[in-house]
């Protein structure tokens, strides 16, 4: 009935995005030899999906109070996010989206999940919704600089996908200057 005329394009995009997502997945790959970290480590690569290296920030700006929150995924949502990544790598965007939906029902206020959802919306070429997710994540990440950085990066990508480059640069510069 309803066919996806661009299914091939979507598939290709999905693979590309899955590669990006997997590299930035907040669920660490099992590393039995290492002591398990107390929380899933933030993306270690720091690779900005936009391709530009994050400028170093030597800004001696007044440091905000120490982070009061550190967001991480629960075992349930972590497994769902991993499942969504697998589905996405297979090109099944709809199923990946439904799986992230499940995670969001379990932890609706977790900014990391909104970032995941926003990244998926970018894959779907829905930059407008990706922007919504980015802003939602940013609001929820209050007090958690690491997560805020990820949210700003998503937001900048979403804005750039809408040709709003100036706004994107502003968001990125906030990410670099305000946050340590």
């Amino acid at each position: 009935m309803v066919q996806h005329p661009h299914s091939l394009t979507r598939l290709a995009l999905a693979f590309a995005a899955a590669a990006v997502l997997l590299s930035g997945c907040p669920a660490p790959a099992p590393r039995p030899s290492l002591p398990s970290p107390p929380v899933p480590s933030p993306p270690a690569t720091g690779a900005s999906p936009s391709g530009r290296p994050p400028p170093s920030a030597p800004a001696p700006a007044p440091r905000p109070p120490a982070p009061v929150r550190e967001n991480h995924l629960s075992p349930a949502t972590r497994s769902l996010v991993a499942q969504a990544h697998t589905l996405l790598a297979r090109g099944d965007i709809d199923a990946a989206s439904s799986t992230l939906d499940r995670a969001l029902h379990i932890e609706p206020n977790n900014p990391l999940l909104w970032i995941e959802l926003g990244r998926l919306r970018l894959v779907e070429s829905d930059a407008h919704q990706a922007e919504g997710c980015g802003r939602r994540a940013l609001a929820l990440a209050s007090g958690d600089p690491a997560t805020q950085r990820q949210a700003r990066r998503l937001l900048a990508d979403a804005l750039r996908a809408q040709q709003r480059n100036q706004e994107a640069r502003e968001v990125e510069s906030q990410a670099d200057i305000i946050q340590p």
Partner: protein
Amino acid sequence: MARSRAPRWRLPLLIGCIALLAAIAVWVVYLDRVVTREFQGRHWSVPARVFAAPLELYVGAPVAADDLEEELRRLHYRSGDPSAGPGVYRRHGGAFDLQARRVRFIDELREPTRVSIRAGSDSITDLRHADGTELPVFRLDPPVVGSVFPIHGEDRLVLSPADVPPLLRSGIKLIEDRRFDEHHGVDAYGVLRALWANLRARRVVQGGSTLTQQLVKNYFLSDEQTFGRKATEAVMALRLEAHFSKEEILVAYLNEVYLGQDGARAIHGFGLGSEYYFAKPLAELDVGELALLIGLVKGPSFYDPRRHADRASARRNLVLQEFADAHLIDSTAAKRAAASSLGLRPPGGSYVPAYLDLVRRHLKRDYAEADLAAAGLAVYTSLDPRAQAAAERALAVNLKRLDAASRVRGASLEGAVIVAEPNSGDVVAVVGGRDVGTDSFNRALDARRPIGSLVKPAVYLTALETGRYNAATLIEDAPIELKLADGSIWAPQNYEHQVYGRVPMARALAESMNLATVRLGLDLGLPQVADTLQSLGLETRPALNPSLLLGTVEMTPLEVVQVYTSLANGGFRARLRAVRAVLDEHGRPLKSFKVQVEAAAPPAAVYQLDRMLTLVTTRGTGHDAAARLPRGTVVAGKTGTSSDTRDSWFAGFTGSYVAVAWVGYDDNRATGLTGAAGALPVWADTLAHLKSASFQPVPPELVEDRWIGFGDGLETTPACSADAVSIAVPRGTVLPGKPDCTAASSGHAAAPTGTVTDKVKAWFNTLIH
């Protein structure tokens, strides 16, 4: 002589015979065509089936052991040995072992799965695969809540050959058509036998129709009993047998056969019959249940097990006896089954017309009515049956109580409730009136009423957004008269006809002061307030009369929920969603409705407002809410009462849900109820049943918490003032302090720390001391 006369009548007779034969041949060929064409491309009319959201289980999920068992029973899992087959669970205290059924979700088809679950007195504590490995998350079956069938339409669940249990296959032949495997569509012996039996009994006791004839009758023909129709039926049956296999005909019969009536809904086929009478998949029926269904074929209304249990029971036992006589089952099994109860599922229960109404409206944007009624779609909704039941009960109980206490005689109060999850916009419950079982007027979606003071948060949010106001800002509650465009004078009053003078904004909102709000709103500008309402989610721009500020704008409960979702969501508008996805008849995704969020208002301003709305339920007009909720639960909300108490509203949110309740009369007469007296108990009782978490928004970095005197708005400490309340203001805001009371030399170091819950507890403590 005779010879010479013969040609005179023989020729016309011959011509007549040939013409008749030719006509019969044409007729047979025509029927053959009809049979092959229609049956070849047979497409069962399968209404869209609607599923509720599955219950998610994970360690920490707020599902107690008893809740879990209740949910399993709702899904018609039975207690027993889970290794026996799907749909069975075993419970020992808080430990559950179960075998989940084969079930299709939006994103996967899950084969039968065995899991072990441990549940405590309030949550899930452990979740494992059958082999003992950890299972991070597991969902139960999505409950079926109905189907979108046409008026006077057929409802069915189509079986494939593999879905037909062997006993059904042999049993239906035994009871309805013993010689099915031998005959060619029409059974001469059967007809003679039926004739003989009927003659002996001097009434119709047996029909001679084969399964094929019954199928033809149901599938191709009308219900009239004429000789011509009987002949057509016989010819079509013969042609059907000539073209199709016995297997195809049998399975088609099992899908077509009529098994009962549920109001306007006709129950067709054994698949749906099994679900309708027993709420189980066909594969899980025991011998007695299967015998009852097979027995029903003879007369679904005469043997209706819900209305004529004795007849149905006798019919079932007769069928069981025949099974035993034919050695399909052994006689002890037959006796045991005959001694058991009919095993019907309790009637009603899961039927939710008001919610289905919303589903239908959402789907109408994308699907034709005909597709919904016939194309076999599967519709996955956000409905949470537990929330739905809680809302239905809260409304029924409170309306009954309010009616009993009311002085209005001869009229019953009506009401509506909608519950949603603010983050996703998922609508989890819709109650359209006190009569939940019927498709009557759906007040939740269609009752458009003045919202009264529910509008006020939009006025105060507009003020906070300007940056010129904060929760402690003093505003003037004083009489005001306005000359309207039509020349009349508008002089609003406070509900208690009092005047309060200069009050902090937080108190003006909490106590729902009309004069202060009108003055504030006029200062801000009506267009600005209307803009705020629209960005929060109101779709039509309200008329810009000053009375807008007191809520003369009319909205449906659904529209109110949309607006309050943005407040519950930290300033993000989540589009309300009843349908998550639609799958086609083969389980392929057709359409999914994604979570949609957009920025609606600045998060910092919304946070300040939300903190003011928590004061409504602790210090203000909504303080009765606390008594109905688990102790210490923080909620935010607003009462609303339209002029002359025609409408009683409450809208508000917890950490998990946003909900609105409305109470009023359909004929719009005065109720004598404020929002706090009418709608608030309905709202609070609904949320109390849902084990809702406290409202604990993430504080934006741009704001900080401070204590002020609720009456005078001066900065203070709980130790210093009995009426100290916690508010949020932009970081670094200078607040005038109470003399001798500011613990802070630095201006704002007295900011209380901790969660909102802590602050509420601290406030409770100030009351006690």
